[in-house]
């Protein structure tokens, strides 16, 4: 066993926890709990950023951490929660038949992302290089969430989750993106979430459901 530094251990632990929240998102059926989990994921990201800032002495990363905390752990979850309450979805649960299969598929995706990342890992010299595999996995799991779920709110969470994965990779492997990019992305996400909110309200008004499968009706092909 190679002696590993506390920092590396902590980063790994955080990576594992973020990955875990992604899995938990896939397993969760209740809207309120889903949003809470998403907030936790954001908080973990913020902690990771702060940790990286602490270790690499980059003060601007503290700002980034604060931004993440404010936006991803507080503001967006709060907004989504309000939306859910407004749309009366608090006690709504999604029907998850065959969810065990989805979860096994998620595990397979994790292995796959590790497989994909392996050549990069061998080139990289950073201590936290393995975390890249986890980041990719988080992105893929977010995508999976979007694919397997029908409820629009869940899909938004999946989208945000993908973004979280990218952010995680950026923070851990390159010690964060330039501030401008970060701010831009953060703003984009916020705008996106608001747009989604508006979209839901319209969606519900027009097709009386938030089940995106109902959008099938919009296609022109005859059935």
């Amino acid at each position, binding site marked *: 066993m190679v002696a590993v530094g506390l920092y590396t251990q902590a980063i790994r632990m955080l990576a594992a926890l973020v990955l875990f929240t992604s899995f938990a998102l896939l397993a969760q059926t209740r809207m309120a709990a889903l949003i809470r989990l998403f907030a936790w994921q954001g908080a973990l990201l913020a902690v990771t950023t702060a940790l990286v800032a602490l270790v690499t002495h980059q003060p601007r990363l503290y700002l980034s951490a604060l931004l993440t905390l404010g936006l991803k752990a507080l503001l967006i979850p709060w907004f989504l929660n309000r939306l859910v309450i407004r749309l009366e979805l608090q006690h709504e649960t999604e029907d998850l038949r*065959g969810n065990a*299969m989805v979860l096994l598929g998620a*595990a397979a995706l994790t*292995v796959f992302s*590790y*497989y994909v990342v*392996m050549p990069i890992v061998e080139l990289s010299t950073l201590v936290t290089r393995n975390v890249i595999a986890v980041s990719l996995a988080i992105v893929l799991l977010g995508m999976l969430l979007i694919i397997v779920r029908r409820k629009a709110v869940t899909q938004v969470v999946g989208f945000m989750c993908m973004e979280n994965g990218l952010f995680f990779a950026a923070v851990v492997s390159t010690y964060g993106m330039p501030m401008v990019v970060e701010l831009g992305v953060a703003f984009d996400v916020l705008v996106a979430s608001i747009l989604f909110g508006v979209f839901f309200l319209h969606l519900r008004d027009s097709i009386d459901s938030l089940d995106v499968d109902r959008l099938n009706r919009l296609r022109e092909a005859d059935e």
Partner: protein
Amino acid sequence: MADPNLTEGTVLTLALAYLAVASALLSALVALATDRYPVVFKITSFVLLGAAGISAVAAGVMNLLSGKIHTAQLGLGLPWLAWHLRLDPLSGFFMAVTGIVVLAVAFYGPAYVRQYQHGPQPLSVLGFFTGLFVAGMLLVLMADDAFLFLVAWELMSLSSYFLVTYQHQYASNRRAGYLYLLMAEISALLILLAFGVLAQFSHSFAFHAMRHAQVPPFWATTAFVLAFLGFGLKAGLIPFHAWLPEAHPVAPSHISALMSGLMLKIAVYGLIRFSYGLLAHIRWEWGLVLLLMGTASALWGVLYALMQHDLKRLLAYHSVENIGIIFMGLGLSMIFIGTGHPVLGVLGLIAALYHTLNHALFKSLLFLGSGAILMRTHEGDLEHMGGLIRRMPQTAFLFLIGCLSISALPPFNGFVSEWLTFQSALQVSVLSNAVLRAIIPVTAALLALTGALAATCFVKVYGVAFLGRARTRRIRHAREVHWSMRLAMGTLALLCLLFGVLPTVTIRVLGSVTKLLLHRGLPSASVHGWLWLTPVSAGVASYSAPLVVFGLLLALGIGYVLLHPRMSSGAIRRVSAWDCGFGALSTRMQYTATAFSMPIRRIFNPVWLVDESTTVHMDPREPLRVASVEYQLHIGDRFWPMLYEPVSRWVLSAARYVSRIQTGRVRTYLAYSFVTLLVLLWLIR
């Protein structure tokens, strides 16, 4: 290699092997006379079969212990290709396994076949094909060239076809037999092609030439895939298993034991012989395929078994499961060999071989046990059984040992081989390929799931068939079977325990097989003495089955002595079971097999084609009043609509297309012949 150094050992070993085949054939011939002289010849036929079993065991064990290779050529067969025979530890091991089961069947048979004596089919047919079947299996093991191998293979397949269709008065049996024959022939064809690929490079059908042939990787893989498909089909691997649960149960039970217990093992033998013996370089990708297919088979097999309530069908599905476990061991072995860890490859191979032996023992035991029930009660459906432990106590006890063994519970044999498979799977940290490192533990966890489900299934089987109360009159009046049948089952049960308790000895003996194939044994397994099994090293894992048995007996003994009625609080009072004060427990109130497996069905629902319906008729005179409730459940195999039916449709439409050449005019047929003749002449020009 082909040097026939005719030492005394060789002569004796080969002679024993010949004797085994000869007695099996003789038993077949003698059996032909049973119709006229039933008693004497029935006994004689089985005595000869027993002799075949004994000599096979002797030949096999001698071979295993000596570790030598014995070869011979017989002047039979094709003009340019004499029959090459060879006995090496691999065939010796399988021969010994065959011998044990055949011996048990020989004990079991005479009393068992009595029920067919006055049946519509002559007993002679049964005896004749049984003899041929056993001879065929033995010959496959001895074959050292592709030609003899396939001849023996066909002998085995064809004779077993007649055994499957023995009771051909039932349409379902005929259908099962047809399916069986079809699959067997496809399998033979694929094996033929696999040998063909090798023969292309060795320029000979003899195995010793193939061993030394230089086969390019592509063709080696092609040959392996063909062989894997061929042998896998015969072994009943998913998705080629569909014939197995149809064919095995319809044969008489002692034949089911031979088929499930042995014939599937012959297919395993074929694959080991082909890939380890004939193909020089094993690739890890092959192992991965084997591992994944094995895992799928194990899981699928046990899940389907759980849904069955026909005892023999259930056991047949368990064969699919166990073949899967054997293939998992082989797959692990190939992965380790292919990635350059031959020692661990040995571990995997030993796990597979051990499980082969174990499955032969406990599956035969269970089939013989189900035969005993069938004979006494004419009942194969679990839902109608119950309480047999009181009517057939000794059979019940022996069957319990079979159940414990197949459920992989310590200290019985099934546990040892599954444990070895686990140990093999846990050595993945040596692999540099991370994906393999992730996949293998998952397959191991699925193996654990399989084991746990198998235990569930056998709790169901034993609980519903032997425990509780008799559900029908026939069961209520069942009585114990003839002592010879119990002796046969007892022998197998004893061996189940012995091979569970003495794994170190067994593994040391199996070492000669791995020495032959991989040039090394597993010395680390028994380095701490016979008491301790340490497959890799004592630090990594250890298991002491004798001490476990000792500890269990000690705990039981102390408990019994301390708490025996004499010692403590007095005699036991018997009262009727708790009925909540209602006063009339009936057999309808027992848990049924369907009910028992219902939670599992609900969890894994997508696995099966479940057709479940509850028909409720309301009373026309009173709204809301239920007049009758009828429940129906049919569980279908998903592979039928997924694989077999499309294939059969495709074949049928192809046949219809081809049938256009079928004109019915003689002159047209002659024209076909004429054209064929011309083409052939042109080809051999």
